[in-house]
């Protein structure tokens, strides 16, 4: 075992003629929190989607725990239990309560005992402060509560890694914090994560490593302090300066 949860080697991804990545390599180690930042359209979401097989790839190999990903339906079902993903728009199932949303996958996919899964679900809900919302429908939740529920829905699968794609981007500012607190806690506890975010302060606090993606390539990669305070490339400097307001 190399200790790499995810290893991407020479990934090539294109939509028709539109090449997003021609040769991208990246690893995430056990327990590591890696934050990806970069301008809109640079392929952050696409990268995460490739990792759990929502997008087919055109070249290269993705290794999960040292084993290359296969894209058959059966193997995808297995992979997706190992790779949790939370999207920007919560996407809870509106026809199910919070608890039903969370239990769907452990009970139907992993065939776990319902009672035991329910106990764990309740513990997890307690941890994210949603114990009393277990029987509520998503319609009755705030954006922040929905997103915390979505995180629990992924966590209960015991994934090897969590992929988070701008999970606070659709939230009102006062709800961003409650969601990021949950992610921060996971990061501290050594959950491997690959996070796409525009919350720079959070990225700096949570990341073990920051990756700056632009033009389909990793332009910069490093410790958060170094990256945020003394970026090496002009491109990253300009990108970061857009996040701090200064009168010109």
């Amino acid at each position, binding site marked *: 075992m190399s200790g790499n949860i995810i290893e991407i080697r020479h990934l090539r991804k294109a939509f028709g003629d539109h090449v997003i990545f021609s040769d991208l390599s990246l690893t995430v180690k056990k327990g590591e929190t890696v934050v990806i930042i970069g301008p809109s359209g640079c392929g952050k979401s696409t990268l995460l989607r490739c990792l759990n097989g929502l997008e087919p790839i055109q070249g290269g190999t993705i290794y999960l725990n040292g084993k290359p990903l296969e894209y058959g339906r059966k193997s995808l079902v297995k992979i997706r239990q190992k790779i949790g993903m939370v999207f920007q728009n919560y996407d809870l199932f*509106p026809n199910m309560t919070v608890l039903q949303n969370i239990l769907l996958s452990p009970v139907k996919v992993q065939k776990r005992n319902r009672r035991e899964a329910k106990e764990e679900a309740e513990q997890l809900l307690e941890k994210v402060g949603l114990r009393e919302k277990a029987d509520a429908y998503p319609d009755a939740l705030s954006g922040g509560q929905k997103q915390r529920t979505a995180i629990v829905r992924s966590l209960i699968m015991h994934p090897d890694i969590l992929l988070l794609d701008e999970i606070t981007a659709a939230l009102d500012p006062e709800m961003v914090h409650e969601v990021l607190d949950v992610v921060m806690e996971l990061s501290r506890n050594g959950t491997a994560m690959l996070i796409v975010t525009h919350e720079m302060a959070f990225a700096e606090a949570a990341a073990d490593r920051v990756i700056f993606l632009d033009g389909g390539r990793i332009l910069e990669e490093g410790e958060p302090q170094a990256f945020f305070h003394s970026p090496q490339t002009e491109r990253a400097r300009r990108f970061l300066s857009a996040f701090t307001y200064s009168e010109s």
Partner: protein
Amino acid sequence: MDWSFMTEYAPLFAESARITVMIGGIGTLLALVTGLICAWIMYFRIPLLRQIAAVYTELSRNTPLIVQLFFLYFGLPKAGVVLSSELCGIIGLTFLGGSYMAESFYAALKTVSVSQIESAESLGLSRYQTMRYTVIPQAARAAVPPLCANVIFLLKETSVFSAVSLADLMFTAKDLIGMYYNTTEILIMLAAFYLLILLPVSVLFSLLERRMNRGRI
């Protein structure tokens, strides 16, 4: 108003109402099944079958029911296929209704967003489980109002069955008017019997709709 006339012919109307309900009911039910099958084919873009479904829906939606019935009742015998009035009614209604049902079921399936489906898949759900636990329950909710409208529309369409000699309500009414000229009484009875059939259906459906809306909070 000739009340004795009305009481005398009420049993006849009741008998024709039974035929309207029976043929209309069977036709509507088969239309529903046809609609489900076509919607499934359209949703999963099943090659070949999809093209057939497209041709069918265009044909069905763009010809009046009466023309479809004439084709079955007067046209087919020329090719050696003779169908009873009842069978013509059932086939005609199924043919017409199937496309309307297909369109509304397809639209209902499409209301479930791609991101809902991806969210289910990324939880490891198989394609079947994704349909069963997320797409179909949501689509079913969306399909109820158009389904109700279609059922009522089809039951009303049965009024052209008389054109192929089916002894339904309309047929009886026309017959009686031809014989007795009690137009007012007969038309009142006709309207009353259609209401008797359609009102309960309508009330039932609005109850169903209200229930579904309550279920969701």
